[in-house]
């Protein structure tokens, strides 16, 4: 519907007078018209030129001397930097955010080029940490969520890689380091929300926290099943300080309601309890056989439930559904673990199917009601 038709309709409905409609239409017509079709073709033309340049360069790239490659690389970086600087405005714009992201990605590409020219082999985490270090000051000038998400990812995984928590590393404290990282992110989120006005940073930390928390819970849950380390201490000194920082953050977070603080604290306590049980499992086969396997499965479900309720109270509907889904998955996987080969028999599969359908029906009937109830409790508790 065109502006004129809309205005005519509104005037007919009595929402605006005919005189107001005429004034609005005059004002709209007086503004310079930009055709989206023409603009699209302009962008297409510019992109085609860029693609042409890239193709010409790429086709002969391998034949260029190293010096030329480096000069070209640094020239491109400088030009992009100048464009970014000249396009800066106090109010953040999409153009600035995209250009800045392009710049820091180009910095990473430059590191790759330097590594290739000088035949450098360095661990991936070293590259991630160096890149995070050199791009930090540029990144703090943006509030772009995507930029912060990528940068935080490089920092977090660079640090974890440096601390040797890879699958093939034999660091006995891998899980504790991972848990400490999750606790530290809780504290970091508090700091970013309280002392910076950078919404991109806060959202980025929150996203990584949402990713790392279920990963932490599931790792703690499954670790004790497949690892047995007799006579080895698994006490890691980093857990307590990061836990203290997380508790401090929860206690002093002014934008959290009491019920939300209780939920977060309970989740942290559940993770610590699961870690203690995991340690007992590692050193006591009898305990593991009798209680350990089921205890950690139950604690995972409890932790997911606490987080689901927390997300509901924060009105983050999709995250609420995600954690409910994780609960269902864990119940299902526990069924298969508990019954072992029996679960794959005809009867076992029948029961599993009934369980899945039952959970889905339960979900469909009650999810929205539960969410509404949680929001109600939160409002009542404030």
């Amino acid at each position, binding site marked *: 519907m065109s502006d004129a038709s809309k205005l005519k309709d509104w005037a007919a409905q009595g929402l605006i007078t005919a005189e107001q409609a005429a004034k609005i239409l005059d004002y709209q017509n007086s503004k310079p018209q930009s055709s989206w079709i023409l603009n699209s073709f302009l962008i297409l033309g510019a992109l085609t030129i860029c693609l042409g340049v890239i193709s010409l360069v790429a086709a002969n790239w*391998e*034949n260029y001397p190293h010096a030329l490659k*480096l000069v070209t690389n*640094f020239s491109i*970086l*400088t030009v992009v*930097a100048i464009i*970014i*600087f000249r396009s*800066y405005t*106090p109010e953040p714009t999409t153009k600035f955010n995209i250009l800045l992201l392009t*710049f*820091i990605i180009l*910095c990473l590409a*430059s*590191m*790759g080029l*330097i*590594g*290739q*020219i*000088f*035949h*450098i*082999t*360095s661990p991936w985490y070293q590259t991630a940490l160096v890149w995070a270090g*050199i*791009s*930090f*000051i*540029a*990144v*703090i*000038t943006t509030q772009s969520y995507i930029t912060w998400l990528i940068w935080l990812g490089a920092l977090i995984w660079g640090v974890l890689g440096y601390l*040797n928590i890879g699958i*093939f*590393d*034999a*660091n006995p404290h891998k899980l504790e380091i991972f848990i400490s990282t999750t606790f530290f992110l809780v504290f970091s989120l508090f700091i970013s929300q309280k002392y910076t006005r950078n919404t991109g940073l806060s959202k980025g930390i929150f996203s990584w926290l949402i990713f790392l928390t279920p990963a932490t819970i599931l790792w703690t849950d499954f670790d004790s099943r497949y690892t047995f380390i007799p006579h080895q201490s698994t006490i890691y000194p980093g857990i307590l300080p990061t836990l203290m920082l997380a508790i401090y953050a929860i206690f002093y977070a002014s934008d959290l309601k009491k019920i939300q603080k209780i939920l977060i604290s309970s989740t942290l306590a559940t993770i610590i309890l699961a870690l203690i049980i995991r340690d007992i499992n590692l050193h006591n086969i009898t305990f593991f056989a009798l209680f350990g396997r089921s205890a950690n499965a139950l604690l995972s479900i409890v932790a997911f439930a606490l987080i689901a309720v927390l997300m509901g109270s924060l009105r983050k509907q999709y995250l609420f559904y995600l954690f409910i889904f994780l609960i269902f998955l864990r119940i299902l996987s526990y069924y298969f673990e508990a019954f072992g080969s029996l679960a794959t028999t005809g009867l076992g599969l029948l029961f599993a199917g009934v369980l899945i359908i039952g959970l889905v029906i339960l979900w469909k009937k009650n999810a929205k009601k539960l969410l509404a109830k949680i929001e109600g409790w939160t409002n009542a508790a404030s």
Partner: protein
Amino acid sequence: MLRAKKILAVGLILPIVILIGITANLKYTIEHGKEVILPISGYDPRSLLQGYYLMYTVDYGITDICKNEHFHSEQKAYVCLEPKQFSYSQPENCAILIQGTCQYRTFKAGVERFYASQQNAQQLEKLVRNHSASVALAVTKSGQAFVKYLLVDGKRWEAN
């Protein structure tokens, strides 16, 4: 706004300066480091997002390298070429020292890759399989090693 623009300027200039600095440092180190030529074996051409390269194992001429450490974890280690010895702590009175890490019972000094174009990498891989190959390294006093060039049958290999 002026303060924010100053921070932005620093944020944009700093990475470029650091990267140029790293490049210059690498160039200087490779040109002025002590040149050492070592035989290589175990070639494996690879291609990744960053380009084609040849992976190989450097023969330091020392037996029992990285034999007594935990299989998985990375452990700092040192190879001394004059006099030939291997140790997990920095040796004294070593004329040519290369520092690296032991992982999976292999000593890695960050010199086990040689980047080439796709066409050259394939040609290079055939050459080194059928002839004797070596790598020329530039080694600093602190033990850092960098690849200078490859040799096939004693002659420096040049890309087409």
